[in-house]
């Protein structure tokens, strides 16, 4: 127990630093991916995207980020095996943060599209299986997480496909697409609003101390969704036709979709915050849990609010200071995405990610969004997509898991050598 008592505050400080940098990286890089579709389709400006992201990333991290955080924190490793040497878990979690951060940097230099989620999961599995013992890893849980990485893009793609088809049927197929868009689009908002508030209420709010029954959640969610829908109606009622032509007035319809994309961008940011902030603060929460309880593992405590807060602030800082430049790059490149296809893709991706967050599954927001975009493409909604990206994603998986694992094993032994055991 000596190490924890002697170096406890130093270790915690280091973990906070690593965690904050990781959150910074998520903010600077990942958020840009999540919001890039909105910017790319010219629905919102970069400044607006950053403002939206700040508010909703933070809300997502704080309100709905607890479940995934606890998975990263204690869902991958079996803490029982470490009861006698808690410092190993502290080293491991710190090593994982450092490894994932390092790997993201290396990957960024070479321009590989790696996922923060995959890096951190690979890192945790790595240090636990090699540094501690193969049995320390809950392989069943890891299998579940890995399969969710396959399921989530497929699910988002299917959903985007269905949404695209329904938009075609109800809006572009209507006698007056402009009127139909105004009438039907807020209903899509109702579903998204309902789903997000349902996940938040049933899964997210425990750590704030709010205990809400399932029936109450149903009612509250419906009310929130209804308010969002009304907001949508109000937002759309202000849109007037700018041109009148005998042909389909697509210019006007796309302007409506552009307004809708402000809403989907909000939900995308919320979803991203709820899932990806855990990558940075999950390990930090684990370290904090051990140190604050004086070396006791498995003390049953929820992730403290200040850690979620720290993660939220880190993401916002990364985004505000550097994310806009990444977003600029993406925004100017995705010119082929129209507001209506961007709407379908973001709606599907946000829904999938939030559901995953509710199910405590850490998934890759970026890859989910790619799946959703491909779904829109399947519905013939995008002029040209490069399918090689799918291959790139597969390769990035194959490389990221062992790389994250290898680096974290290295750092684990390094910390062990510096601070010692016992």
């Amino acid at each position: 127990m000596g190490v924890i008592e002697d170096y406890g505050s130093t270790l915690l400080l280091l973990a906070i630093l690593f965690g904050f940098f990781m959150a910074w990286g998520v903010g600077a890089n990942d958020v840009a991916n999540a919001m890039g579709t909105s910017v790319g389709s010219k629905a919102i400006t970069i400044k607006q995207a950053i403002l939206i992201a700040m508010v909703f990333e933070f809300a997502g991290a704080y309100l709905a980020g607890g479940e995934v955080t606890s998975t990263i924190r204690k869902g991958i490793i079996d803490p029982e095996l470490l009861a006698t040497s808690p410092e190993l878990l502290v080293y491991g979690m710190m090593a994982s943060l450092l490894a994932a951060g390092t790997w993201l940097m290396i990957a960024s230099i070479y321009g590989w599209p790696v996922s923060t989620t995959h890096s951190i999961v690979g890192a945790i599995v790595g240090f636990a299986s090699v540094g501690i013992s193969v049995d320390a890893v809950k392989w069943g849980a890891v299998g579940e997480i890995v399969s969710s990485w396959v399921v989530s893009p497929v699910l988002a793609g299917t959903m985007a496909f269905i949404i695209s088809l329904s938009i075609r049927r109800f809006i572009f197929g209507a006698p007056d697409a402009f009127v139909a868009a105004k009438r039907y689009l807020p209903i899509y908002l109702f579903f998204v609003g309902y789903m997000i508030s349902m996940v938040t209420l049933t899964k997210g709010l425990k750590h704030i101390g709010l205990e809400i029954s399932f029936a109450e959640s149903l009612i509250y969610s419906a009310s929130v969704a209804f308010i969002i829908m009304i907001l949508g109606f109000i937002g759309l009622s202000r849109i007037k036709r700018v041109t009148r032509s005998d042909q389909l007035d697509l210019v006007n319809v796309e302007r409506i979709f552009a307004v809708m994309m402000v809403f989907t961008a909000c939900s995308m940011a919320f979803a991203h915050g709820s899932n990806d902030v855990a990558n940075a603060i999950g390990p930090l929460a684990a370290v904090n849990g051990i140190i604050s309880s004086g070396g006791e593992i498995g003390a049953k405590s929820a992730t403290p609010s200040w850690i979620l807060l720290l993660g939220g602030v880190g993401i916002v800082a990364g985004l505000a200071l550097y994310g806009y430049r990444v977003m600029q790059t993406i925004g100017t490149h995705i010119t082929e995405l129209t507001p209506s296809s961007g709407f379908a893709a973001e709606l599907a991706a946000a829904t999938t990610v939030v559901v995953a967050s509710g199910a405590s599954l850490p998934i890759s927001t970026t890859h989910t969004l790619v799946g959703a975009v491909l779904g829109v493409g399947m519905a013939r909604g995008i002029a040209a997509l490069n399918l090689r990206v799918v291959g790139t994603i597969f390769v990035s998986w194959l490389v990221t898991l062992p790389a994250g694992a290898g680096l974290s094993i290295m750092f684990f032994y390094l910390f062990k050598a510096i601070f010692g055991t016992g």
Partner: protein
Amino acid sequence: MGTNIIILAYNAADIFSEILMAISPLFNQLFSRSPIAPMQAHMKVACQAATEIQGYMDAVMAGDWDLAGKLGAGINKLEGDADELKRKIRLTLPRSLFMPVSRTDLLELLHAQDRIPNLAKHIVGLTSGRQMVIPEALVPAMRELVQWSVKPSAIALEALNELDELITTGFSGKEVDLISAMITRLGEVEHEADIKESEITRLLYSVEKTLDPVDVMFLYRVIEWVGDLADKSQTVGNRMLYLIAR
């Protein structure tokens, strides 16, 4: 000491973010440039080459070879531009591209489009090369034929310009109807050009005995080629239908 640490941390963060910034995000790779706009650009050039034939033939019929030479050179240049655009499109259509239309159909459409400026160039080459004189009796009918033969290319261009909307609406029935209506109209105009072609052919037959046999032979050919301009544009329209219907 405290501020030093903050500055150090800030610098570290700065470097970290600079590196993150240098990434080429996944989405840059995912969204390929749409081939639709280049296809439209190619068709615009093709249509222009066809339209220019009208002014060119007017100059030929007026016997103004200076003007005809100038206009003909312009048409030849347009043909070259179209070839270059075609080459670029072919190079930027890798098999890994995932499009709402079949790649083969798109390339077939491009091929059909490219035959319009080629034909225009041939017309210029033949008439200029032989300094052809259109007999006085044929001039009004020739004007009519030229006028009707270049029209379909403009309609084809108009239809092709609807392709973006078609993709935006995800091939909604209304947009498909709109385009197929345009292509039907194109067919009607082409039919009209066909009638003009047979009229002038009959006219030429009635006076051919009075003309030089070799000249007559090539006059028939020019008439055929001018009429073909409408034909080729209709082929473009039909190829577009393949693209739409799946």
